[in-house]
Each structure stands twice: as structure tokens, then as C-alpha cells.
């Protein structure tokens, strides 16, 4: 049965001016234009969305869960990158 296995596209929606594009889900479509139309019908039925991105799923590279430890480790032991690390005299308003 020849069916609906057109290429898979990941859909990102921006819900309001200035908001980031966030992953919403995926659609099957023959090309980018078709993917945007399908994404509109599936992920933008409520009028909040102001912009759509579609990306061929196969074009996305992702970090692998097994590497999460070593990959993100350099960020986890640097308390001095957070404002709480610093002391200021009592009563002084810094911000």
C-alpha cells in the first residue's frame, strides 16, 4: 500500500512576537513548502503562532544521551558563573 511516508520534517513554532521558536512536533511532507502548509494545519490552528520553521528531520544532529555527562560536565562545577557566588556588603542594592 503506497502511503504517506513522505520525508519527515521537524516543526518549530514561534508563539508571539519576540518569543523563541520551539519544537512543536513533526509532519510528513513532499517538500519544504508542503511541510509549512501541513505544519500550519497541524500546529497552528489556534492563532497564537506568528512564525514557523520546518527542518528535514535527517538534517538535525543531536548530542547523544550517553555523552551527556562528559559533554555538559564543564558547565556544572563553575559556581563563579552564577551571581550567588559573590558576596556584597549588607544593605547595598546591587541591581
Amino acid at each position: 500500500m503506497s502511503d504517506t511516508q513522505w520525508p519527515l520534517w521537524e516543526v518549530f513554532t514561534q508563539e508571539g512576537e519576540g518569543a523563541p521558536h520551539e519544537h512543536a512536533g513533526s509532519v510528513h511532507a513532499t517538500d519544504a513548502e508542503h511541510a509549512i502548509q501541513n505544519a500550519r494545519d497541524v500546529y497552528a490552528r489556534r492563532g497564537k503562532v506568528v512564525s514557523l520553521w520546518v527542518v528535514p528531520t535527517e538534517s538535525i544532529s543531536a548530542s547523544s544521551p550517553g555523552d551527556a555527562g562528559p559533554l555538559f560536565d564543564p558547565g556544572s562545577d563553575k559556581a563563579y558563573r552564577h551571581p550567588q557566588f559573590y558576596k556584597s556588603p549588607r544593605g547595598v542594592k546591587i541591581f
Partner: protein
Amino acid sequence: MSMTTAPAEDPTKLAEFESRLNAGETIEPKDWMPEKYRKQLIRMMSQHAHSEIVGMLPEGNWITRAPSLRRKMVLLAKVQDEAGHGLYIYCGTETLNVSREELVDQLLTGKAKYSSIFNYPTLTWADIGVIGWFVDGAAIVNQTMLAKTSYGPYARAMIRICKEENFHKRQGYEICSVLSNGTPAQKAMVQDAVNRWWWPSLMMFGPSDAASPNSAELMRWRVKKETNDALRQRFVNLTIPQALAINLTVPDPGLRYDAETENWEFGAIDWSEFQQVIAGNGPCNRERLAARRKAHDDGAWVREAAEAHAARQAAKAQSSAA
């Protein structure tokens, strides 16, 4: 419990997986998972997606006969939502390394199941009201729990669906409320619809936990966080006061409020009817599948045309680049 884990799984990985679940972590598509977890999710999510798709049929039946333009607009939007909800869940299921084509094929060949509730006919306009109120109401109770399921893509699809589905229930209850306050004939029509849909709606939560083959494992892996019986009771507790408020009764002589447990106790469910409908002998099983197959076959030319159009666009782009 020893039956619940396939012997082939690596015990270290399995222990790690279960400790992640115990810590309340979310499982994502690329994470290691036991084959049984993947299979259970594919079964559950694809049944859920099929239910959204087949669920369009009983309601679609009334779009051309909606009693006003407002009701027609609302019903069109609701049915379109159901199509969208089916697609959200199919796309979530595809992250488990199964193609949508395969899933759709399982539905069309009758291999996959969908919610039995959609094998009952919509005889009058009041059925559209009661479906929104009971069937979507029951679905919301179930899906609110599933929004916290351990598999990330399923949970995210559920959150999206729950946000949209509240209007489905509201519009259904509004229809019932208007009919109940209408002429005696309208009141009788909505009471009749309530009488026909009440028990099948309670059955939507699935067999009693004692008789539910998958419940224990699904709960252990936090796919489900509550039992079928607990969800069913929550639905009854929510729904009975809503029925009383618009002067409708449910067809259960055993129904009574227990002040101590604060539950509406209900009578015994006739599970033989449920089994009959699941086995394919419900009032509309054959009709629903035939309608899905016809829609799929009749849409073949659209799929072919879209492919031909894309091929031509690609060829054009290539020749203008050359």
C-alpha cells in the same frame, strides 16, 4: 512480576533505566529503553492516535445537519482538532522507530485497536452534545494523567491536546444544557442520548485493574500514573454533579453518593458488552473501518499529485540552477 521484563535485556541497563524512572526522570527517544517499554508505548500511543482519527467519523456524520451555523462552525473546528490530535500522537509514536505508514496500515487492516466508544452510532443531534460532554470529558481525565507520563514525546503531545480539548467538553455540555432546558421533545432526546452513552463512556477507561493485563507494568514504568478504576471514579465524581445541574439522570439505579469517601458509587459494569465491541461486534465496527479505508483509498490521488508536484518543483529548481 518476573514476566514483565524480557530476559534478553541487559540487567545493568535495566536497573539504570528503572532508577531513572524512580527519580521521576523523563525518557527521551534516544535514551536506552527496554524493548517491552518501547512495545507497550507503541501499542498504547498508536491505539490513542487511531482513536482520534476514527473518532472523527461519528461526529463528522452530523456536520451537514448541525442545527445552526454556530454549531456547525464549532463541530467543524472540533473534528479538525481530532485530526490534529491524531497527527500529534502519530508523530510522537514515530520517535519509537516505527513508521506512520506501518501504524496506519495496522488500523486499516483491522490489526490495531482503537477506542471502542467510537463503535457506537450517533443517532440524534443530542449525541453530539453527549459525546463532547462524556467522551471528551473522559478523554480529558485520562489525558491529564498521561501529560505526566514517563515518555517525553507522549507527555508533550498530551499537554498540547489537553490545552485544546477543554473547548470540546464545554461545547458538548452547552448543547446538552440547551436541549435539557428546551421543549419536552428536546429534553427527551438528550436524556435518551445520555442513557445510551453513559455505560460505554465508563468503559472507556478500560477493564477493572484486576482484569487489566497491562496495568501493573505500565504503572511500574510510569507510563500510567493511575489505575483505570481510579480514573473512572474521578470521571463519575466530576460528571454526576454536572448532570444534576441540568436535570439529567444517568441510567444507573445503583448510583449513590458516599459521604465518607466523597465518591459517587456506581453499579456494576457489563463487561461482556465491552468484550463484544472489542471483538469487532459493536454496532458500527465494520462501518467505521470501511469508512476509514474508503477515505484512505479516495485520497490516493491527492498523495500522488503532491508527489508529482514536488518532483516537478525540484526538477525546475535544478534546471534553473544549471
